[in-house]
Structures are given as structure tokens and as C-alpha cells.
């Protein structure tokens, strides 16, 4: 029960912060209206039973920036490769569909993996099933990159500090 109270307070605070940063006004009326609407939104969320606790865990947050930096480097690099393919007169394509087995345990981490694959140009997650993720790739470099599993391992590494029984 204590966790529920804490997450309600954190969520209200976050909504309030969102209100302030979007409005840019700091007078009493605006802040008061913002507070009232934040509380109203949280109340509705609780009534609809949408306030869940299995999202991104706060304990994991410090690890994400490092992964993001690595992902941005990957995105820029494969962007240049795709741009080169698109602009070259012959367009050397090697279209392939590969299957990759996600090594993550939670749905959230698998979603991050699938989204990271799609966000990186040259590879798109087409379908997901129990067998794994189907990835369409534009050229051999990209397919090999997915099959090398580096991104897979890195995202699995993001969640290793969750004990298995704690997962929803």
C-alpha cells in the first residue's frame, strides 16, 4: 500500500512538472489550476485502474543514458550507410528477413529491443511471435548487425538487476 501512495505522489509531481514546463506561467492561478488538473487526472487514472507498476523501474533509470548514447551512435552510423545505398546509382540491395530471439525477460525490455531495431535505419521489426522477432533488413551489413546480437545483449544487460520473481 505504501508503494501505491508513493507512486501516486510521484505521478502527480510529474504531471505538475509537465504542466509548468508547457505553460510557462508561475502565478498562483496557473499553478493552482495545474495542481487541480493533475490531481483530477490521477484520480481518473486510479478509477480506471490504469496506474500500474510494471513499467520502467526507477532503479533502472541510471543505466539507460549509456545505452541511449550507444544507440545514437548506431543510428547515425547506419543512417549514413542507408543514405549511401539510396544515393548510389546502382543501389546495392540485399534484402533479407532474419529471425532474432530476444534475450530479455520482461515485455518492456523486449519492446525496447524491437523499437531500437526499428529506430535504427536499415532494419525494421516486422512481426513478433514466440519464436522471436522477424526483422526485415535492407542490406547484408544490417542483417549481420542484428544476428551479431550486440543490441540484444546490451538491452538484456539493462534489466539484469531485477530478481526473476519480482517481474509481473
Amino acid at each position, binding site marked *: 500500500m505504501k508503494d501505491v501512495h508513493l507512486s501516486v505522489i510521484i505521478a502527480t509531481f510529474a504531471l505538475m512538472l509537465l504542466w509548468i*514546463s*508547457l505553460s*510557462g506561467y508561475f502565478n498562483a492561478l496557473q499553478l493552482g489550476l495545474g495542481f487541480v488538473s493533475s490531481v483530477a487526472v490521477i484520480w481518473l487514472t486510479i478509477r480506471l485502474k490504469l496506474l500500474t507498476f510494471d513499467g520502467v523501474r526507477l532503479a533502472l533509470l541510471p543505466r539507460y543514458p549509456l545505452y541511449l548514447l550507444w544507440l545514437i551512435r548506431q*543510428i*547515425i552510423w547506419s*543512417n549514413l550507410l*542507408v*543514405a549511401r545505398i*539510396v*544515393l548510389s546509382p546502382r*543501389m546495392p*540491395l*540485399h*534484402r*533479407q*528477413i*532474419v*529471425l*532474432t*530471439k530476444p534475450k530479455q525477460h520482461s515485455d518492456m525490455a523486449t519492446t525496447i529491443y*524491437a*523499437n*531500437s531495431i*526499428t*529506430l*535504427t*535505419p*536499415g*532494419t*525494421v*521489426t*516486422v*512481426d513478433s511471435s514466440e*519464436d*522471436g522477432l*522477424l526483422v*526485415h533488413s*535492407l542490406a547484408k551489413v544490417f*542483417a549481420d548487425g*542484428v*544476428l551479431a*546480437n550486440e543490441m540484444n545483449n546490451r538491452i538484456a544487460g539493462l534489466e539484469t538487476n531485477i530478481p526473476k520473481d519480482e517481474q509481473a
Partner: protein
Amino acid sequence: MIVDALSWILLISGSAFCIISAIGVLRLPDYFSRIHAAGILDSVGTGALILGLMLQGGFTLVTVKLFMILAIIVITGPTATHALARAALHGGLTPELDEEEAPSNS
């Protein structure tokens, strides 16, 4: 001065990638390859443009709002791309492939 130059470099390269992405959508041969070209726009195109605008904005609320836009695009872009690709596959469109059997790493 340096910030201004950096911001313009980002803005111009972002625009260049948007154009390259458009060229790719026109030139690539089939639906599933064209999705990759649109992916350039999702990631580096808008990313560089918004980062450039953030540098122009400086430490203001505008920058905070731009950051929110960037975060939303980074999450919704791939989701929409995946939804399109999945819908096409399930709708019966078979991707043209240059290699038949699907390699796997499992």
C-alpha cells in the same frame, strides 16, 4: 558563435537527410525497402532538426518542449513503422527478398 554554427550544421544536415529519405522512398523498389528510407526521417532527420532548434532556443522552456517532441517522435516513429510493416505482412504482401531462407541466431 560556436553554438550557432553547430546548430546550423545540425539544421542543414537534418534537412539533407530529410531530402535523402524522400529520394529513397521514391527510388527503392518495393514496399518493405521504402520503409527503411522513411526510417531515416524518423531518426536522424527529425532528430538533427530538433537538436538544431534546441541549440537555437538555448536554456528556455522552448527547449524543454522541443525535447518532449523529440521523445514522443522517437517512441511513436518506430511503433508506427512497425505497425505499417506488420499490417502489410499480415495483409498478404510478401516482401521481395534477395536471399530465400531466413537465417536465425537463436
